[in-house]
């Protein structure tokens, strides 16, 4: 949700979501298929350059957004890399526990490194999409790609009402807090339970009122709307080719340098 705020300020916001989706999809697939450290890092940096140069995002914000998945990635990769091996295996670093060795092997480290960098690259691709395309444009694009209407409409409604519900929840929480509802563990738990049931009830009633409002505007079962005019964004197509070519080149060079 944090990314959405920046998507609305992006210089690419008015560009049709299709070429943006294409650029993301192509670079993402190439990055996944190459399965290499260099391509992963290249994709990450390349997407960073695109987001900052084309979208006008400050590099600091981009780096900030990378911090969050970085933590998850690091934890995930450590669990892949570290393992227990039979005594006598060649290890980079290990601790003997009983008759087995716990630690890292060179092969394991390489594998972890590759997964880590590959994942970073794909995160870069997704950020290019997320930081330049508001969710509503994305759902519009999905509709054009023949994703079932029902699914797309649900996504749109859910996205819109996440904000309404979280506002409701925040208001209830403030009201409870102002009457000392969150002092002590027991009271906090019971207050939180009440909050959850209240939010559910209100959502229920709200759904009724929204339906009425939609009906009064001629709703007959589909949320068909028009978007504001897009810029076609043809310029992104050669850029997509260029990015993919760059990824392939890096992959090729890496293959040559590393036996």
């Amino acid at each position, binding site marked *: 949700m944090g990314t959405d705020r920046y998507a*609305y300020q992006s210089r690419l916001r008015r560009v049709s979501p299709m070429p943006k989706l294409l650029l993301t999809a192509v670079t993402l697939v190439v990055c996944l298929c190459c399965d290499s450290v260099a391509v992963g890092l290249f994709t990450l940096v390349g997407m960073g350059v695109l987001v900052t140069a084309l979208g006008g995002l400050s590099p600091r914000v981009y780096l900030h957004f990378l911090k969050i998945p970085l933590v998850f990635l690091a934890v995930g990769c450590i669990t892949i890399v570290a393992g227990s091996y039979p005594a006598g295996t060649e290890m980079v670093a290990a601790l003997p526990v009983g008759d087995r060795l716990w630690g890292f092997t060179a092969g394991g480290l390489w594998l972890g490194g590759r997964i880590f960098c590959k994942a970073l690259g794909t995160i870069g691709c997704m950020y290019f999409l997320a930081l330049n395309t*508001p*969710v509503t444009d994305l759902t519009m694009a999905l509709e054009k790609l023949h994703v079932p209407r029902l699914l797309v409409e649900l996504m749109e409604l859910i996205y*819109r009402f996440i904000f309404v519900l979280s506002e409701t929840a925040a208001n209830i929480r403030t009201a409870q807090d102002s009457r000392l509802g969150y002092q002590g563990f027991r009271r906090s738990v019971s207050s939180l339970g009440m909050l959850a049931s209240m939010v559910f009830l209100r959502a229920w009633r*709200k759904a009724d009122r929204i339906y009425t*409002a939609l009906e009064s*505007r001629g709703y007959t079962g589909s949320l068909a*709307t*028009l978007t*504001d005019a897009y810029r076609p964004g043809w310029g992104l197509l050669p850029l997509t080719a260029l990015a993919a070519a760059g990824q392939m080149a890096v992959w090729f060079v890496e293959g040559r340098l590393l036996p």
Partner: protein
Amino acid sequence: MNAIQAEELCYTYEDGTVALDHVSFAAQKGKITGILGANGAGKSTLFLSLNGVITPKSGRVLLGGEPVRYDKKGLTELRRRVGIVFQDPDDQLFSADVYRDVSFGGVNLGLPPEEVRRRVEEALERTGVSHLRDKPTHALSYGQKKRAAIAGVLVMEPEVLILDEPTAGLDPQGVSDIMRLLLQLRDELGMTVLIATHDMDIVPLYCDYACLLGGGKVLTQGTPEELFAHPEALRANHLRLPRIAHLMEVLRDVDGLDADRSVATIGAARREILRMLKEEEP
């Protein structure tokens, strides 16, 4: 001429609450009519039945003199010609994109895309939210959401525009902006406007006619001045006189001055007080 008219409307909710009890009233074409009533007086139910969301148990709704039919075609027609703006804009704005939300009603009318776009532009311009088109709905202020909600109804180019509590929750500037917008719609487009309100001070300023609703019945209707001449009926229904009209009532009843009962706006009060001062002088 009556733009929209209700005849003997009755409606009872499933739980037995009688919301409308033989309601008959008419809104004149190209005028602003205020529907006054306390909470639970039946204003919202009346509005929903005027737009066909609720089908009255008995009685009928006449639109431009013709009774409304409740088949699919009749309802589509009714909803095109009668638009409702709900009290809470968060109930109405279903899309996170202002432009798309405003376009919804136009698309539902089956208009060609160019025509929808033209209408969306016009509605955004008229309601003064054109500059907000690049913002997500959840980033708008309450007043801005309200305007966007009005734009979403204007796009259908209704003949009758119904607003449920249009001024609730707005700051004084927001109230006068919204009400001035309604005056513009009346004067420039000849739109018939119905507003439900218990903000009594806006009634003499912006309403051409008013109708007092209580307990699901129409109690009185007429010009605002006629209604204010009978403050008892308003007070019995948890309403009050506008502040200025109250002042005039006090001047008349407590201080024994010859103040006109129907005076309810600052301008009229000024003239009335100056007149009384002049009469005292000699």
